[in-house]
């Protein structure tokens, strides 16, 4: 095979940030018309590598060849010219602009500086028909679905004549149905001769669409394999560097008395609209209740209301039989609540403060950590050291700022702080967001351990795998309400996906049954 068979070759790419090597001599070869997966844990250096390819970062050393010719990609504009387009994980879309404006931005058709919207809409229409990317060119981004936002991102690259498309964790924000659609779109793109690099840490996606897969671990390229002849287990082991187990081990649940009961609560979001609409639920001791739903359906507001971070307009929240709605967070906490917040940087930790201070921050005002209003630094240090040891928080010392820890270890520190207070209800919101397989395994084990110790656990997550694996019951939230409560054993990802999109349980069940044995059809 001669060199020119590759549309892209990255040879010996190294990128250093100070003394830290994010990429260490990485090699990647992309064939024309293939879907090439780039697999690695968080922080393995996938995004760095792709930012180099798309001109956002400059490599410290190494070569990039396109169609066998060496090139220097020093700006995103240059990458565009070379036919490389990136579909970013966090969409690079201007919310207040229309679909058309977002697509043409930077290469606008114009007559003497005046925008030519007609020509633009025409060429967008042609592109979207050619590749089956349904969008409404005149809609504003803020009013369209996440799936359509992603199609706009894809159209942006195609509009610029991209031949090579990079998808950065494209399924993180999509429902299962939208993921199916995306897979179809990717196949359609390669059929038209485009080449695709798919960055992901989801193995089933790789198995479904990718032809080859390059595995990266700690900044180094480990191997490139053919997907059809490699099992998921092999891929996972290569990615993590040891043998990992997928299935979360857990025993039967034995739910006892009700610990948390929420009765008809209404919560408003920042702009004054009702985010939670007369919602009721119960969590019992010894069970994990999972809350599934697409981001923005009131889950965050529900949890903020229970934890006292936002106002409850009406309804009752009872924790251990005591009404806690509109109580202060400290009162609620002392009444037996542990909270692993959704945004660990904003609500979970004070990043510039030391790890020991962060660990002590829920109990610093009590003996022995303080006495008559004065902190007791020695006790705080002892306490922090004890928890760091017990919960295996990997850190240089307890005095480093919380920001110096990796995401997984930050999360472990929060879990240590919350669980050690022995709360009767533990709320875990998105506890594994952005974490890698190893850390996820650990956190799931801890949540189940809480349950087995007779505590109630409320788990909110956008990851269906996590919900299905860890929960004992699943409540699906849609537009501020719980639309269904199902048992993990009796449901499927597909059914949950339909419920999350607002379908009723009967309809979802019927639809899933109809789909069985059939290829998933293209739904819009």
């Amino acid at each position, binding site marked *: 095979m001669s060199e020119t068979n590759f549309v892209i070759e990255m040879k010996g790419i190294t990128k250093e940030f100070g003394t830290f090597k994010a990429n260490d001599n990485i090699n990647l070869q992309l064939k024309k018309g293939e879907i090439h997966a780039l697999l690695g844990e968080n922080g393995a250096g996938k995004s760095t590598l792709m*930012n180099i390819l*798309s001109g*956002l*970062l*400059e490599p410290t050393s190494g070569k990039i060849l396109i169609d066998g010719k060496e090139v220097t990609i020093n*700006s*995103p*504009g240059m990458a*565009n010219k070379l036919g490389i387009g*990136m579909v*970013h994980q966090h969409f*690079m*879309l*201007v*919310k*207040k*602009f229309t679909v058309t*404006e*977002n697509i043409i*931005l*930077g*290469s*606008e058709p*114009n007559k003497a*500086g*005046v*925008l030519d919207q007609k020509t633009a809409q025409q060429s967008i229409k042609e592109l979207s028909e050619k590749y089956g990317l349904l969008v409404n060119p005149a809609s504003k981004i803020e009013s369209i679905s996440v799936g359509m936002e992603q199609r706009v991102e894809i159209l*942006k690259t195609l509009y610029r004549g991209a031949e090579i498309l990079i998808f950065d964790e494209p399924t993180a924000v999509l429902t299962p149905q939208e993921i199916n659609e995306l897979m179809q779109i990717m196949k359609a793109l390669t059929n038209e001769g485009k080449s695709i690099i798919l960055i992901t840490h989801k193995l089933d996606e790789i198995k479904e669409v990718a032809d080859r897969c390059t595995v990266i671990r700690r900044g180094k390229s480990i191997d490139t394999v053919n997907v059809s002849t490699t099992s998921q287990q092999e891929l996972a082991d290569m990615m993590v560097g040891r043998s990992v187990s997928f299935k979360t081990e857990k025993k039967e649940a034995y739910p006892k008395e009700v610990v948390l009961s929420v009765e008809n609560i209404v919560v408003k979001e920042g702009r004054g609209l009702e985010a939670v609409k007369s919602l009721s639920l119960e969590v019992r001791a010894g069970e994990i209740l999972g809350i599934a739903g697409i981001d923005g359906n009131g889950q965050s507001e529900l949890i903020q209301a229970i934890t006292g971070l936002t106002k409850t307009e009406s309804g009752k929240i009872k924790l251990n039989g005591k009404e806690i709605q509109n109580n202060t967070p400290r009162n609620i906490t002392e009444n037996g609540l542990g909270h692993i917040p959704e945004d660990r940087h904003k609500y979970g930790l004070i990043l510039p403060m030391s790890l020991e201070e962060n660990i002590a921050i829920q109990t610093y005002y009590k003996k022995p950590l303080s006495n008559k209003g004065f902190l007791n630094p020695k006790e705080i240090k002892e306490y922090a050291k004890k928890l760091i040891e017990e919960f295996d928080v990997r850190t240089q010392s307890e005095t480093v700022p919380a920001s110096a820890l990796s995401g997984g270890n930050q999360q472990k520190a929060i879990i240590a702080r919350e669980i050690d207070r022995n709360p009767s209800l533990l709320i875990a919101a998105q506890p594994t967001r952005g974490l890698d397989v190893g850390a996820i395994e650990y956190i799931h084990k801890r949540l189940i351990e809480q349950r087995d110790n007779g505590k109630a656990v409320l788990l909110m997550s956008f990851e269906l795998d996590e919900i299905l694996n860890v929960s004992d019951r699943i409540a699906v939230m849609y537009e501020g309400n719980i639309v269904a409560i199902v048992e993990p054993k009796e449901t499927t990802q597909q059914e949950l996906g339909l419920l999350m999109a607002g379908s009723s349980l009967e309809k979802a069940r019927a639809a899933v049954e109809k789909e069985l044995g059939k290829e998933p059809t293209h739904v819009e």
Partner: protein
Amino acid sequence: MDIINVLQLVFSSALVYSAPLILTALGGTFSERSGIVNVGLEGIMVMGAFSSVVFNLTFASQLGNWTPWVGVVVGGLIGILFSLIHAVATINLRADHIISGTVINLMAPALAVFLTRVLYDGRGQTDIISENFGKANIPLLEKIPVLGPIFFRGTSAPAFVGIAIAVLCWFVLFKTRFGLRLRAVGEHPQAADTLGINVYMTKYAGVLLSGLLGGMGGAIQAQAISLNFSASTIAGQGFIAMAAMIFGKWNPLGAMGAAIFFGFAQSLSVIGNYIPIIQDVPSVWLQVAPYLITIIVLVGVIGKSEGPAANGKTYIKSK
């Protein structure tokens, strides 16, 4: 006075006072649409006012009637130079936008009064200019029956120029490539960057345009209203223009409308005596009115008015 005369007086005075506000509010709109908060508009107006008066006093004998108009251009150019400080500080040096703007507001009057003392024998204010904008009749339009005399006779020429510029700014902001890119940079600079738009240059364009228009606004204030330069020539007009920009929802036409409203409020203290309903209100209330109205409007509006998403945030390009 009959009703036509009263209306004529109200409209022309409102326009005289709104002309500086219109231009400065448009300037603020460009700056903030590019994501740079410019509280330094007040200082920029001071420099525009000062430079135009110095120019006017120096060249009035050569340029005659055209002096104030050229003075406005001079004020605009000086405004650009002064806004460059804000641009360098906020875009390149990543300074806090409010701090940098405050520095400009503190520096400009000090510098201008100091230079006045140096140039004019130690006096804290300049002489009265001989060539000012005065009152003008708009050709053709003034002949319209009833409306002509009310709106277009004995009125402020700079205000009509300002209205025309506002329409032009609206067109530039919403219908041209430059405008689309400027707005994109103010909303989501990273998105603009990934599409090959030069974020820093675009922000410079926004800030320098605010310098140009703010300087012009200051020059109009000095040459149409105060007619000389002193420390009190610009007394909060830059901040009122900012309020007009917010009230106008960062839209040039909205900002223009709000500026005319605030101009009307400012003119009240001058014309209050002639308007039947309010002529008995003590004049001190009418003098306070524009500032009071500004505060009330901002308190009522600011929560609902949503500015550019990345306004006031420093954009750092990763290397």
